[in-house]
Protein backbone atom coordinates (compact mmCIF):
# COMPACT_ATOMS: atom_id res chain seq x y z
CA UNK A 1 0.00 0.00 0.00
CA UNK A 2 1.42 3.41 -0.85
CA UNK A 3 0.24 7.00 -1.19
CA UNK A 4 1.52 10.30 -2.51
CA UNK A 5 0.19 13.88 -2.37
CA UNK A 6 0.45 15.73 -5.65
CA UNK A 7 -0.95 19.24 -5.39
CA UNK A 8 -4.60 18.82 -4.50
CA UNK A 9 -4.67 15.16 -5.48
CA UNK A 10 -3.80 12.32 -3.11
CA UNK A 11 -2.79 9.25 -5.05
CA UNK A 12 -3.31 5.98 -3.24
CA UNK A 13 -2.24 2.55 -4.45
CA UNK A 14 -4.06 -0.07 -2.42
CA UNK A 15 -2.67 -3.49 -1.70
CA UNK A 16 -4.05 -5.94 -4.27
CA UNK A 17 -6.04 -7.80 -1.61
CA UNK A 18 -7.89 -4.58 -0.76
CA UNK A 19 -8.20 -3.12 -4.25
CA UNK A 20 -11.92 -3.89 -4.65
CA UNK A 21 -13.02 -2.43 -1.33
CA UNK A 22 -11.06 0.81 -0.98
CA UNK A 23 -13.19 2.84 -3.37
CA UNK A 24 -16.54 1.73 -1.85
CA UNK A 25 -15.05 2.49 1.56
CA UNK A 26 -14.16 6.05 0.49
CA UNK A 27 -17.67 6.58 -0.95
CA UNK A 28 -19.21 5.29 2.27
CA UNK A 29 -17.09 7.55 4.50
CA UNK A 30 -17.98 10.56 2.32
CA UNK A 31 -21.67 9.83 2.89
CA UNK A 32 -21.03 9.49 6.60
CA UNK A 33 -19.26 12.86 6.62
CA UNK A 34 -22.48 14.35 5.25
CA UNK A 35 -24.46 12.52 7.93
CA UNK A 36 -22.07 13.88 10.55
CA UNK A 37 -22.67 17.43 9.30
CA UNK A 38 -26.39 16.86 9.87
CA UNK A 39 -25.61 15.51 13.34
CA UNK A 40 -23.62 18.67 14.10
CA UNK A 41 -26.69 20.78 13.36
CA UNK A 42 -28.55 18.71 15.95
CA UNK A 43 -25.66 19.00 18.40
CA UNK A 44 -25.19 15.22 18.54
CA UNK A 45 -21.49 15.19 19.40
CA UNK A 46 -21.67 11.64 20.74
CA UNK A 47 -22.58 10.14 17.37
CA UNK A 48 -19.99 12.30 15.61
CA UNK A 49 -17.39 11.11 18.09
CA UNK A 50 -18.32 7.48 17.37
CA UNK A 51 -18.03 8.05 13.62
CA UNK A 52 -14.68 9.78 14.07
CA UNK A 53 -13.41 7.04 16.34
CA UNK A 54 -14.37 4.29 13.88
CA UNK A 55 -12.88 6.13 10.92
CA UNK A 56 -9.69 6.77 12.89
CA UNK A 57 -9.48 3.01 13.40
CA UNK A 58 -10.09 2.01 9.79
CA UNK A 59 -8.63 4.75 7.58
CA UNK A 60 -5.01 3.65 7.91
CA UNK A 61 -5.96 0.04 7.37
CA UNK A 62 -7.52 0.90 4.02
CA UNK A 63 -4.30 2.67 3.02
CA UNK A 64 -5.47 6.16 3.96
CA UNK A 65 -3.33 7.23 6.94
CA UNK A 66 -4.20 10.85 6.19
CA UNK A 67 -7.86 10.00 6.80
CA UNK A 68 -6.94 8.52 10.16
CA UNK A 69 -5.07 11.74 11.02
CA UNK A 70 -8.03 13.95 10.07
CA UNK A 71 -10.51 11.65 11.86
CA UNK A 72 -8.35 11.94 14.99
CA UNK A 73 -8.76 15.73 14.80
CA UNK A 74 -12.51 15.28 14.39
CA UNK A 75 -12.69 12.97 17.39
CA UNK A 76 -10.78 15.48 19.51
CA UNK A 77 -13.11 18.29 18.42
CA UNK A 78 -16.22 16.19 19.08
CA UNK A 79 -14.99 15.29 22.58
CA UNK A 80 -14.53 19.00 23.27
CA UNK A 81 -18.00 19.68 21.76
CA UNK A 82 -16.33 22.44 19.75
CA UNK A 83 -18.77 23.26 16.94
CA UNK A 84 -16.29 25.30 14.91
CA UNK A 85 -13.52 22.69 15.15
CA UNK A 86 -15.90 19.85 14.28
CA UNK A 87 -17.16 21.75 11.25
CA UNK A 88 -13.58 22.44 10.16
CA UNK A 89 -12.52 18.82 10.65
CA UNK A 90 -15.51 17.52 8.65
CA UNK A 91 -14.70 19.91 5.81
CA UNK A 92 -11.10 18.78 5.92
CA UNK A 93 -12.10 15.09 5.74
CA UNK A 94 -14.47 15.76 2.86
CA UNK A 95 -11.83 17.71 0.95
CA UNK A 96 -9.32 14.93 1.45
CA UNK A 97 -11.72 12.16 0.37
CA UNK A 98 -12.73 14.17 -2.71
CA UNK A 99 -9.07 14.52 -3.64
CA UNK A 100 -8.12 10.84 -3.26
CA UNK A 101 -7.33 9.13 -6.55
CA UNK A 102 -7.02 5.34 -6.61
CA UNK A 103 -4.08 4.29 -8.72
CA UNK A 104 -3.57 0.67 -9.71
CA UNK A 105 -0.07 -0.80 -9.35
CA UNK A 106 0.24 -0.90 -13.17
CA UNK A 107 -0.37 2.83 -13.40
CA UNK A 108 2.23 3.43 -10.69
CA UNK A 109 4.78 1.46 -12.65
CA UNK A 110 4.01 3.46 -15.81
Amino acid at each position, binding site marked *: MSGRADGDVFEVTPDP*WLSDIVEPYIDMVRLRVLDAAALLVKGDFRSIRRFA*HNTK*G*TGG*GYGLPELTRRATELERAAIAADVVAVDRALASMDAYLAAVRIVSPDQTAA
Partner: protein
Amino acid sequence: MRDLLPPTPAYGIRRSWLPDAVRSPCVLIVDDDPDAALLLSRSLQRHHIRTEVAGSYLEAKRAMARYPIEVVVCDVWMPDGETHSRAGIALLRELREQGSNTAVVLVTGTPELTVASVALELEATAYLPKPVEPDALVGAVRRGQRRVRERADGNTIAQRFLAEKELASRCRHNAALDGALGSLWMAYQPIVDSRTGDVAGHEALVRSHSRDLPHPGALFDCAERTERRTELNRAILGQVCRDLPSLVGDVFINLHPDDLLSPELTSPTFGLVHQATRCVLEVTEMSRLDAPGGAQQHLRNLRSLGYRIAIDDLGAGFSALSRLAALEPDVVKIDMSLIRNINALPRLQRVVGAIVSLCEPEGVALVAEGIETEAELECVADLGCSHAQGFFLGRPAPLAEVSA
Protein backbone atom coordinates in the same frame (compact mmCIF):
# COMPACT_ATOMS: atom_id res chain seq x y z
CA MET B 1 -3.13 -43.47 -1.29
CA ARG B 2 -2.31 -41.16 1.55
CA ASP B 3 -2.49 -38.17 -0.80
CA LEU B 4 -6.08 -39.00 -1.69
CA LEU B 5 -7.23 -38.42 1.87
CA PRO B 6 -8.35 -34.94 2.85
CA PRO B 7 -5.75 -32.98 4.82
CA THR B 8 -5.62 -33.89 8.48
CA PRO B 9 -7.46 -31.21 10.42
CA ALA B 10 -5.95 -29.37 13.31
CA TYR B 11 -7.39 -31.60 15.99
CA GLY B 12 -6.06 -34.79 14.47
CA ILE B 13 -9.20 -36.76 13.68
CA ARG B 14 -10.56 -36.88 10.14
CA ARG B 15 -14.17 -35.72 10.22
CA SER B 16 -15.76 -36.34 6.88
CA TRP B 17 -19.05 -37.02 8.68
CA LEU B 18 -19.23 -33.47 10.02
CA PRO B 19 -21.04 -30.60 8.27
CA ASP B 20 -18.88 -28.11 6.32
CA ALA B 21 -19.11 -25.44 8.99
CA VAL B 22 -17.47 -27.80 11.46
CA ARG B 23 -14.57 -29.13 9.42
CA SER B 24 -12.10 -26.31 9.73
CA PRO B 25 -11.91 -24.16 12.82
CA CYS B 26 -12.07 -20.47 12.03
CA VAL B 27 -11.41 -17.01 13.40
CA LEU B 28 -14.35 -14.93 14.62
CA ILE B 29 -14.11 -11.18 13.97
CA VAL B 30 -16.24 -9.16 16.37
CA ASP B 31 -16.58 -5.47 15.54
CA ASP B 32 -19.63 -3.22 15.38
CA ASP B 33 -18.02 -1.19 12.58
CA PRO B 34 -18.55 -3.18 9.34
CA ASP B 35 -15.65 -1.39 7.61
CA ALA B 36 -13.29 -2.45 10.38
CA ALA B 37 -14.66 -6.00 10.39
CA LEU B 38 -14.21 -6.28 6.62
CA LEU B 39 -10.66 -4.99 6.84
CA LEU B 40 -9.71 -7.41 9.62
CA SER B 41 -11.36 -10.24 7.74
CA ARG B 42 -9.48 -9.47 4.52
CA SER B 43 -6.17 -9.22 6.39
CA LEU B 44 -6.64 -12.81 7.55
CA GLN B 45 -8.25 -14.28 4.44
CA ARG B 46 -5.27 -13.33 2.29
CA HIS B 47 -3.31 -15.73 4.49
CA HIS B 48 -5.97 -18.42 3.92
CA ILE B 49 -7.38 -18.06 7.43
CA ARG B 50 -11.14 -18.73 7.45
CA THR B 51 -13.22 -16.03 9.18
CA GLU B 52 -16.73 -15.44 10.44
CA VAL B 53 -17.99 -11.97 11.40
CA ALA B 54 -20.20 -10.82 14.28
CA GLY B 55 -21.36 -7.25 14.81
CA SER B 56 -22.03 -7.37 18.53
CA TYR B 57 -21.39 -9.25 21.76
CA LEU B 58 -24.64 -11.19 21.37
CA GLU B 59 -23.94 -12.08 17.75
CA ALA B 60 -20.50 -13.27 18.83
CA LYS B 61 -21.98 -15.60 21.43
CA ARG B 62 -24.41 -16.96 18.86
CA ALA B 63 -21.62 -17.55 16.35
CA MET B 64 -19.52 -19.31 18.97
CA ALA B 65 -22.39 -21.70 19.63
CA ARG B 66 -22.56 -22.50 15.92
CA TYR B 67 -19.02 -22.61 14.59
CA PRO B 68 -15.77 -24.12 15.83
CA ILE B 69 -13.98 -20.91 16.75
CA GLU B 70 -10.26 -21.16 17.55
CA VAL B 71 -9.49 -17.47 17.82
CA VAL B 72 -11.68 -14.43 18.46
CA VAL B 73 -10.51 -11.04 17.20
CA CYS B 74 -12.64 -8.61 19.13
CA ASP B 75 -13.01 -4.85 19.36
CA VAL B 76 -12.83 -3.75 23.01
CA TRP B 77 -15.50 -1.05 22.87
CA MET B 78 -18.83 -1.95 21.34
CA PRO B 79 -22.41 -0.74 21.67
CA ASP B 80 -24.45 -2.23 24.46
CA GLY B 81 -27.96 -0.93 23.82
CA GLU B 82 -27.77 2.84 23.92
CA THR B 83 -24.33 3.03 25.45
CA HIS B 84 -20.85 1.73 24.69
CA SER B 85 -19.15 -0.76 26.96
CA ARG B 86 -16.03 -2.88 27.10
CA ALA B 87 -17.84 -5.79 25.48
CA GLY B 88 -14.53 -7.27 24.29
CA ILE B 89 -13.30 -7.63 27.86
CA ALA B 90 -16.69 -9.03 28.93
CA LEU B 91 -16.50 -11.66 26.20
CA LEU B 92 -12.93 -12.59 27.12
CA ARG B 93 -13.84 -12.86 30.81
CA GLU B 94 -16.86 -15.02 30.03
CA LEU B 95 -14.77 -17.39 27.92
CA ARG B 96 -12.22 -17.79 30.69
CA GLU B 97 -14.92 -18.32 33.32
CA GLN B 98 -16.32 -21.10 31.14
CA GLY B 99 -12.84 -22.66 31.02
CA SER B 100 -12.61 -22.08 27.26
CA ASN B 101 -9.20 -22.27 25.59
CA THR B 102 -10.30 -20.05 22.72
CA ALA B 103 -7.59 -17.51 21.98
CA VAL B 104 -8.66 -13.87 22.05
CA VAL B 105 -6.97 -10.99 20.24
CA LEU B 106 -8.29 -7.61 21.36
CA VAL B 107 -8.18 -4.56 19.09
CA THR B 108 -8.97 -1.02 20.15
CA GLY B 109 -8.99 2.53 18.91
CA THR B 110 -8.46 3.75 22.48
CA PRO B 111 -5.56 1.83 24.04
CA GLU B 112 -5.61 2.01 27.84
CA LEU B 113 -3.01 0.64 30.22
CA THR B 114 -5.58 -0.59 32.74
CA VAL B 115 -7.54 -2.45 30.07
CA ALA B 116 -4.33 -3.93 28.67
CA SER B 117 -3.39 -5.30 32.09
CA VAL B 118 -6.84 -6.84 32.56
CA ALA B 119 -6.54 -8.41 29.09
CA LEU B 120 -3.15 -9.84 30.00
CA GLU B 121 -4.52 -11.24 33.25
CA LEU B 122 -7.30 -12.96 31.28
CA GLU B 123 -4.74 -14.47 28.92
CA ALA B 124 -5.55 -12.43 25.83
CA THR B 125 -3.13 -13.37 23.05
CA ALA B 126 -2.59 -9.74 22.01
CA TYR B 127 -3.91 -6.23 22.55
CA LEU B 128 -3.52 -4.31 19.29
CA PRO B 129 -4.17 -0.62 18.62
CA LYS B 130 -6.22 0.47 15.60
CA PRO B 131 -5.50 0.92 12.74
CA VAL B 132 -4.35 -2.66 13.09
CA GLU B 133 -1.18 -3.56 11.22
CA PRO B 134 -2.14 -6.57 9.06
CA ASP B 135 1.13 -8.39 9.82
CA ALA B 136 0.71 -7.86 13.56
CA LEU B 137 -2.83 -9.20 13.36
CA VAL B 138 -1.85 -12.29 11.37
CA GLY B 139 1.06 -12.92 13.78
CA ALA B 140 -1.24 -12.68 16.81
CA VAL B 141 -3.86 -14.95 15.26
CA ARG B 142 -1.21 -17.54 14.33
CA ARG B 143 0.11 -17.44 17.91
CA GLY B 144 -3.42 -17.93 19.21
CA GLN B 145 -4.03 -20.86 16.86
CA ARG B 146 -0.78 -22.51 17.91
CA ARG B 147 -1.64 -22.16 21.58
CA VAL B 148 -5.14 -23.60 21.12
CA ARG B 149 -3.83 -26.52 19.07
CA GLU B 150 -1.02 -27.29 21.52
CA ARG B 151 -3.54 -27.45 24.33
CA ALA B 152 -5.86 -29.62 22.23
CA ASP B 153 -2.96 -31.94 21.37
CA GLY B 154 -2.44 -32.46 25.11
CA ASN B 155 -5.84 -34.15 25.26
CA THR B 156 -6.27 -37.87 24.75
CA ILE B 157 -7.74 -39.26 21.55
CA ALA B 158 -10.91 -40.10 23.49
CA GLN B 159 -11.21 -36.53 24.79
CA ARG B 160 -10.76 -35.13 21.30
CA PHE B 161 -13.32 -37.55 19.89
CA LEU B 162 -15.86 -36.59 22.57
CA ALA B 163 -15.24 -32.89 21.99
CA GLU B 164 -15.80 -33.29 18.28
CA LYS B 165 -18.89 -35.41 18.81
CA GLU B 166 -20.28 -32.69 21.06
CA LEU B 167 -19.50 -30.11 18.38
CA ALA B 168 -21.24 -32.16 15.69
CA SER B 169 -24.26 -32.62 17.93
CA ARG B 170 -24.39 -28.87 18.57
CA CYS B 171 -24.30 -28.17 14.85
CA ARG B 172 -27.07 -30.69 14.15
CA HIS B 173 -29.23 -29.12 16.87
CA ASN B 174 -28.59 -25.64 15.50
CA ALA B 175 -29.55 -26.73 11.98
CA ALA B 176 -32.72 -28.40 13.30
CA LEU B 177 -33.67 -25.31 15.27
CA ASP B 178 -33.05 -23.07 12.24
CA GLY B 179 -35.48 -25.25 10.29
CA ALA B 180 -38.07 -25.22 13.06
CA LEU B 181 -37.89 -21.45 13.52
CA GLY B 182 -38.46 -21.03 9.79
CA SER B 183 -41.68 -23.06 9.91
CA LEU B 184 -43.00 -22.04 13.29
CA TRP B 185 -46.73 -21.46 13.89
CA MET B 186 -49.03 -21.15 16.87
CA ALA B 187 -51.97 -23.36 17.79
CA TYR B 188 -54.65 -21.89 20.04
CA GLN B 189 -56.66 -23.87 22.59
CA PRO B 190 -59.84 -22.24 23.88
CA ILE B 191 -60.33 -21.33 27.54
CA VAL B 192 -64.03 -21.05 28.31
CA ASP B 193 -66.28 -19.66 30.99
CA SER B 194 -67.16 -22.80 32.95
CA ARG B 195 -70.76 -21.67 33.55
CA THR B 196 -71.78 -20.24 30.15
CA GLY B 197 -69.36 -22.06 27.85
CA ASP B 198 -68.41 -18.75 26.18
CA VAL B 199 -64.84 -18.50 24.91
CA ALA B 200 -62.91 -16.16 27.21
CA GLY B 201 -59.52 -16.57 25.58
CA HIS B 202 -56.96 -18.98 24.15
CA GLU B 203 -53.72 -20.53 25.27
CA ALA B 204 -51.00 -20.08 22.64
CA LEU B 205 -49.09 -23.31 21.99
CA VAL B 206 -46.06 -23.39 19.74
CA ARG B 207 -45.92 -25.79 16.78
CA SER B 208 -43.52 -26.33 13.91
CA HIS B 209 -43.70 -28.05 10.54
CA SER B 210 -40.12 -29.25 11.04
CA ARG B 211 -39.73 -33.03 10.83
CA ASP B 212 -36.61 -32.89 13.02
CA LEU B 213 -38.43 -31.21 15.91
CA PRO B 214 -42.02 -32.39 15.55
CA HIS B 215 -43.30 -31.56 19.03
CA PRO B 216 -42.91 -28.57 21.36
CA GLY B 217 -40.93 -30.54 23.96
CA ALA B 218 -38.24 -31.34 21.40
CA LEU B 219 -38.25 -27.74 20.20
CA PHE B 220 -37.68 -26.29 23.66
CA ASP B 221 -35.11 -28.94 24.51
CA CYS B 222 -33.19 -28.11 21.34
CA ALA B 223 -33.38 -24.37 22.07
CA GLU B 224 -31.99 -24.99 25.57
CA ARG B 225 -29.16 -27.19 24.28
CA THR B 226 -28.11 -24.59 21.73
CA GLU B 227 -28.56 -21.71 24.19
CA ARG B 228 -31.07 -20.15 21.79
CA ARG B 229 -34.15 -20.13 24.00
CA THR B 230 -34.28 -16.33 23.81
CA GLU B 231 -34.44 -16.54 20.02
CA LEU B 232 -37.25 -19.10 20.18
CA ASN B 233 -39.10 -16.97 22.71
CA ARG B 234 -38.76 -13.92 20.43
CA ALA B 235 -40.19 -15.90 17.51
CA ILE B 236 -43.12 -17.11 19.62
CA LEU B 237 -43.94 -13.65 20.98
CA GLY B 238 -43.67 -12.21 17.46
CA GLN B 239 -46.12 -14.76 16.08
CA VAL B 240 -48.57 -14.20 18.95
CA CYS B 241 -48.31 -10.45 18.43
CA ARG B 242 -49.27 -10.88 14.77
CA ASP B 243 -52.11 -13.33 15.55
CA LEU B 244 -53.65 -11.38 18.44
CA PRO B 245 -55.93 -9.08 16.41
CA SER B 246 -57.66 -12.14 14.89
CA LEU B 247 -58.37 -13.83 18.22
CA VAL B 248 -61.34 -13.66 20.59
CA GLY B 249 -60.62 -12.68 24.19
CA ASP B 250 -57.32 -12.96 26.01
CA VAL B 251 -54.21 -14.86 24.99
CA PHE B 252 -52.34 -16.98 27.52
CA ILE B 253 -48.61 -17.11 26.71
CA ASN B 254 -46.24 -19.61 28.36
CA LEU B 255 -43.01 -18.07 29.59
CA HIS B 256 -39.87 -19.35 31.24
CA PRO B 257 -39.11 -17.18 34.32
CA ASP B 258 -35.95 -15.85 32.62
CA ASP B 259 -38.08 -14.65 29.71
CA LEU B 260 -39.92 -12.22 31.97
CA LEU B 261 -36.97 -9.94 31.21
CA SER B 262 -37.47 -10.22 27.44
CA PRO B 263 -37.24 -6.78 25.84
CA GLU B 264 -39.96 -7.97 23.44
CA LEU B 265 -42.47 -7.68 26.29
CA THR B 266 -41.75 -4.00 26.79
CA SER B 267 -40.46 -2.72 23.44
CA PRO B 268 -42.90 -0.33 21.73
CA THR B 269 -41.43 -1.23 18.32
CA PHE B 270 -41.98 -4.97 18.85
CA GLY B 271 -45.65 -4.19 19.44
CA LEU B 272 -46.84 -6.74 22.01
CA VAL B 273 -46.87 -4.13 24.76
CA HIS B 274 -49.61 -2.24 22.87
CA GLN B 275 -51.84 -5.31 23.33
CA ALA B 276 -50.63 -6.07 26.87
CA THR B 277 -54.10 -5.83 28.40
CA ARG B 278 -55.12 -8.87 26.36
CA CYS B 279 -52.09 -10.93 27.38
CA VAL B 280 -51.84 -13.31 30.33
CA LEU B 281 -48.28 -14.47 30.93
CA GLU B 282 -48.18 -18.04 32.22
CA VAL B 283 -45.14 -18.75 34.34
CA THR B 284 -43.98 -22.23 35.23
CA GLU B 285 -40.98 -23.45 37.29
CA MET B 286 -42.03 -21.10 40.04
CA SER B 287 -39.19 -22.07 42.34
CA ARG B 288 -37.00 -19.83 40.16
CA LEU B 289 -39.17 -16.85 41.07
CA ASP B 290 -38.38 -17.15 44.77
CA ALA B 291 -34.71 -16.26 44.41
CA PRO B 292 -33.65 -13.19 46.41
CA GLY B 293 -34.14 -10.11 44.27
CA GLY B 294 -35.76 -12.42 41.76
CA ALA B 295 -38.50 -11.85 39.29
CA GLN B 296 -41.10 -10.28 41.52
CA GLN B 297 -40.06 -6.74 40.62
CA HIS B 298 -40.26 -7.67 36.95
CA LEU B 299 -43.74 -9.06 37.50
CA ARG B 300 -44.76 -5.73 39.05
CA ASN B 301 -43.29 -3.82 36.09
CA LEU B 302 -45.08 -6.05 33.60
CA ARG B 303 -48.38 -5.60 35.48
CA SER B 304 -47.97 -1.84 35.32
CA LEU B 305 -47.86 -2.18 31.52
CA GLY B 306 -51.17 -4.05 31.51
CA TYR B 307 -50.04 -7.68 31.43
CA ARG B 308 -51.64 -10.18 33.78
CA ILE B 309 -49.72 -13.02 35.39
CA ALA B 310 -50.87 -16.63 35.66
CA ILE B 311 -49.35 -19.42 37.70
CA ASP B 312 -49.36 -22.42 35.39
CA ASP B 313 -49.87 -26.07 36.37
CA LEU B 314 -50.61 -25.46 40.06
CA GLY B 315 -50.55 -28.85 41.72
CA ALA B 316 -47.90 -30.29 39.45
CA GLY B 317 -44.33 -30.88 40.54
CA PHE B 318 -42.77 -28.24 42.73
CA SER B 319 -45.59 -25.71 42.83
CA ALA B 320 -46.40 -25.12 46.47
CA LEU B 321 -49.54 -23.26 47.52
CA SER B 322 -47.45 -20.91 49.65
CA ARG B 323 -46.22 -19.23 46.46
CA LEU B 324 -49.72 -18.04 45.71
CA ALA B 325 -49.47 -15.40 48.40
CA ALA B 326 -45.96 -14.36 47.46
CA LEU B 327 -46.60 -13.94 43.73
CA GLU B 328 -50.12 -12.51 43.85
CA PRO B 329 -51.13 -13.90 40.46
CA ASP B 330 -54.13 -12.65 38.50
CA VAL B 331 -54.93 -16.15 37.27
CA VAL B 332 -54.19 -19.63 38.61
CA LYS B 333 -54.31 -22.62 36.29
CA ILE B 334 -54.95 -25.87 38.14
CA ASP B 335 -52.95 -28.78 36.79
CA MET B 336 -54.80 -31.60 35.07
CA SER B 337 -53.46 -34.08 37.63
CA LEU B 338 -55.91 -32.50 40.11
CA ILE B 339 -58.77 -32.47 37.58
CA ARG B 340 -58.72 -35.99 36.08
CA ASN B 341 -61.85 -37.86 37.32
CA ILE B 342 -62.45 -35.14 39.91
CA ASN B 343 -66.19 -35.78 39.73
CA ALA B 344 -65.58 -39.26 41.19
CA LEU B 345 -62.78 -38.45 43.66
CA PRO B 346 -63.78 -36.48 46.82
CA ARG B 347 -60.08 -36.12 47.77
CA LEU B 348 -59.39 -34.08 44.61
CA GLN B 349 -62.59 -32.09 45.16
CA ARG B 350 -61.33 -31.10 48.63
CA VAL B 351 -57.93 -29.99 47.24
CA VAL B 352 -59.48 -27.95 44.43
CA GLY B 353 -62.04 -26.55 46.87
CA ALA B 354 -59.16 -25.38 49.08
CA ILE B 355 -57.47 -23.67 46.13
CA VAL B 356 -60.76 -21.95 45.26
CA SER B 357 -61.17 -20.74 48.83
CA LEU B 358 -57.66 -19.29 48.76
CA CYS B 359 -58.04 -17.56 45.41
CA GLU B 360 -61.63 -16.41 45.24
CA PRO B 361 -61.45 -13.74 48.00
CA GLU B 362 -58.37 -12.27 46.32
CA GLY B 363 -60.18 -11.95 42.98
CA VAL B 364 -57.88 -14.48 41.34
CA ALA B 365 -59.45 -16.18 38.32
CA LEU B 366 -59.17 -19.99 38.22
CA VAL B 367 -58.74 -22.15 35.15
CA ALA B 368 -59.20 -25.90 35.49
CA GLU B 369 -56.90 -27.57 32.95
CA GLY B 370 -57.35 -30.92 31.21
CA ILE B 371 -61.16 -31.12 31.16
CA GLU B 372 -62.03 -34.21 29.15
CA THR B 373 -65.61 -34.99 30.18
CA GLU B 374 -68.83 -33.14 30.83
CA ALA B 375 -68.88 -34.51 34.38
CA GLU B 376 -65.46 -33.00 35.12
CA LEU B 377 -66.63 -29.64 33.74
CA GLU B 378 -69.77 -29.62 35.87
CA CYS B 379 -67.80 -30.59 38.96
CA VAL B 380 -65.16 -27.84 38.62
CA ALA B 381 -67.87 -25.27 37.86
CA ASP B 382 -69.73 -26.33 41.03
CA LEU B 383 -66.51 -26.06 43.04
CA GLY B 384 -66.07 -22.43 41.89
CA CYS B 385 -63.50 -22.62 39.05
CA SER B 386 -64.47 -19.70 36.84
CA HIS B 387 -62.84 -21.05 33.68
CA ALA B 388 -61.95 -24.38 32.13
CA GLN B 389 -59.74 -25.74 29.38
CA GLY B 390 -59.33 -29.18 27.85
CA PHE B 391 -60.02 -31.46 24.91
CA PHE B 392 -63.70 -31.69 25.88
CA LEU B 393 -63.99 -27.93 25.28
CA GLY B 394 -61.69 -27.64 22.28
CA ARG B 395 -58.38 -28.98 21.01
CA PRO B 396 -55.49 -26.71 20.01
CA ALA B 397 -56.17 -25.52 16.47
CA PRO B 398 -54.55 -23.22 13.88
CA LEU B 399 -55.44 -19.53 13.91
CA ALA B 400 -57.70 -19.86 10.87
CA GLU B 401 -59.99 -22.24 12.79
CA VAL B 402 -60.31 -20.16 15.94
CA SER B 403 -60.13 -16.60 14.63
CA ALA B 404 -62.94 -14.14 15.23
